[in-house]
């Protein structure tokens, strides 16, 4: 009887020991991971494991893609109808505005110049098509891993775009994020809907620097710091400003479309106003992206890799 009790106590001690050991190891691990920088030992270990497993993930992604594409077709059809209705309404509104307004030639030139920038790919960048192969388990709209890495020329701060296939679109694509970490055969993208991303942005109709575009904790894009006297039009396109200093240039070149104004907050007298922006591309729904890696000296300087 006493022997049985001793065995039982020993088993309970082993059980508790195993659980406690794992809990302590996990705690030490995540504490060290949060404290160390991007180039820390644990970050590097994670990158190494990812690099080893990336080819397997690529094969699996390719195998699942036909099923996924079939499923997405239905969703895309619904989204395309919604987008068509929105553009139709916007078109109608613009026609009305155009008929009732005499355009200032200087303003027209400015808008044309902006549209020209949007219509072309950013200068000094080389496009690489990449597939999204993994997402975080908890918040899929913040980050993703793509199947291209340093072996394909991807660098930190490469720009991540979604090509616009809509024939009426005035731009070749829309910004969805930038590369934050690169391994040999994969890279981690942080989307513009992550609260850690901030972009100096303006609207096409205003042209001048307006404010800082940043996602709130919920992932909604907010353009803040806009002078209260600036009139912001609904549905106006929001673009990057490319602001920065010579020493610390912005990684985003100017004139890249991001989204459109979906709500304008009331301006305080003499204060600032806040605008809600809906991105042209939903990071949740992406399968493939276009990564622009810096190739010119200026682009490399922007990305901080030159």
């Amino acid at each position, binding site marked *: 009887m006493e022997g049985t009790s001793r065995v039982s106590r020993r088993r309970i001690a082993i059980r508790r020991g195993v659980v406690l050991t794992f809990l302590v190891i996990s705690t030490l691990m995540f504490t060290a991971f949060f404290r160390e920088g991007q180039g820390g030992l644990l970050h590097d270990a994670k990158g190494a494991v990812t690099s080893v497993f990336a080819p397997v993930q690529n094969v*699996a992604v390719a195998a699942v893609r036909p099923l996924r594409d079939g499923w997405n077709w239905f969703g895309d059809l619904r989204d395309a109808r919604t987008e068509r209705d929105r553009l139709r309404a916007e078109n109608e509104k613009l026609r009305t505005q155009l008929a009732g307004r005499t355009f200032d030639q200087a303003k027209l030139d400015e808008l044309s110049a902006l549209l020209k920038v949007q219509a072309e790919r950013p200068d000094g960048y080389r496009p690489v098509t990449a597939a999204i192969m993994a997402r975080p388990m908890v*918040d899929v709209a913040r980050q993703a891993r793509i199947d291209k890495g340093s072996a394909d020329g991807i660098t930190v701060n490469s720009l991540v775009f979604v090509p616009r296939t809509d024939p009426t679109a005035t731009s070749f694509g829309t910004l969805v994020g930038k590369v934050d970490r690169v391994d040999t055969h994969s890279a981690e993208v942080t989307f513009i809907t992550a609260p850690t991303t901030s972009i100096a942005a303006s609207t096409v109709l205003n042209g001048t620097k307006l404010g800082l575009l940043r996602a709130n*904790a919920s*992932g909604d894009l907010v353009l803040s710091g806009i002078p209260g006297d600036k009139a912001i039009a609904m549905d106006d396109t929001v673009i990057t400003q490319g602001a920065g200093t010579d020493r610390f240039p912005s990684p985003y070149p100017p004139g890249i479309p991001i989204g459109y104004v979906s709500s304008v907050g009331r301006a305080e007298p003499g204060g600032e106003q806040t605008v809600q922006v809906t991105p042209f591309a939903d990071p949740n729904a992406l399968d493939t992206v276009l990564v622009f890696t810096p190739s010119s000296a200026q682009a490399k300087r922007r990305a901080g890799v030159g």
Partner: protein
Amino acid sequence: MTTNVLERVAGVGADGRRGSKVLIPAAMLAVATFVQVTVMPRVGFGEFRAVPNLVIVVVVALAVLRGVVVGATAGFVGGLAVELLTPGQTLGVIAFASVAIGAWCGRYAALSEPVRWWLFATLAAVGAGLVPFWVGIVDLLRGVGLPLAVLMPDVVMPHLTFGAIMAPAVWWVARRLLGSPRIVEPGMMRA
């Protein structure tokens, strides 16, 4: 002699009872992790900010069928593997939650009444909901988390629902591969 060793590794006892001590649970966890990091991120669920967590459902199944030690070990290995192989700014956070869930669910292996599928589905759903809740709380403490008003409906609830949906199939597979619940712990490998 060789047969005896193979039987012990594969877990087929002298009485022919199925259920592995090491090999089959490890294989189940490996397959679940593989599916988790390859197929699951490609499964579209509209506006939800969640990728279904198959690994935690398998961890709960292993815990319920093999006890605390197997549950905690599977939770640690599975959670860490998922964190290593998916993007995100955590390492050890999901593993911590998975160890706690695996250890807790392992207590059900010692019940005199066999665990029913609906109890397993409840445990799996709660476990699947607790993982993102814990990650969300840690992120909030770091100042980068989703607000609770978004975390609960957009992340935790979908995870919980996905867990409940996947549970019956995982339970069916686990029962066929591992047989009835029995505790496997160091020092009682002959059990």
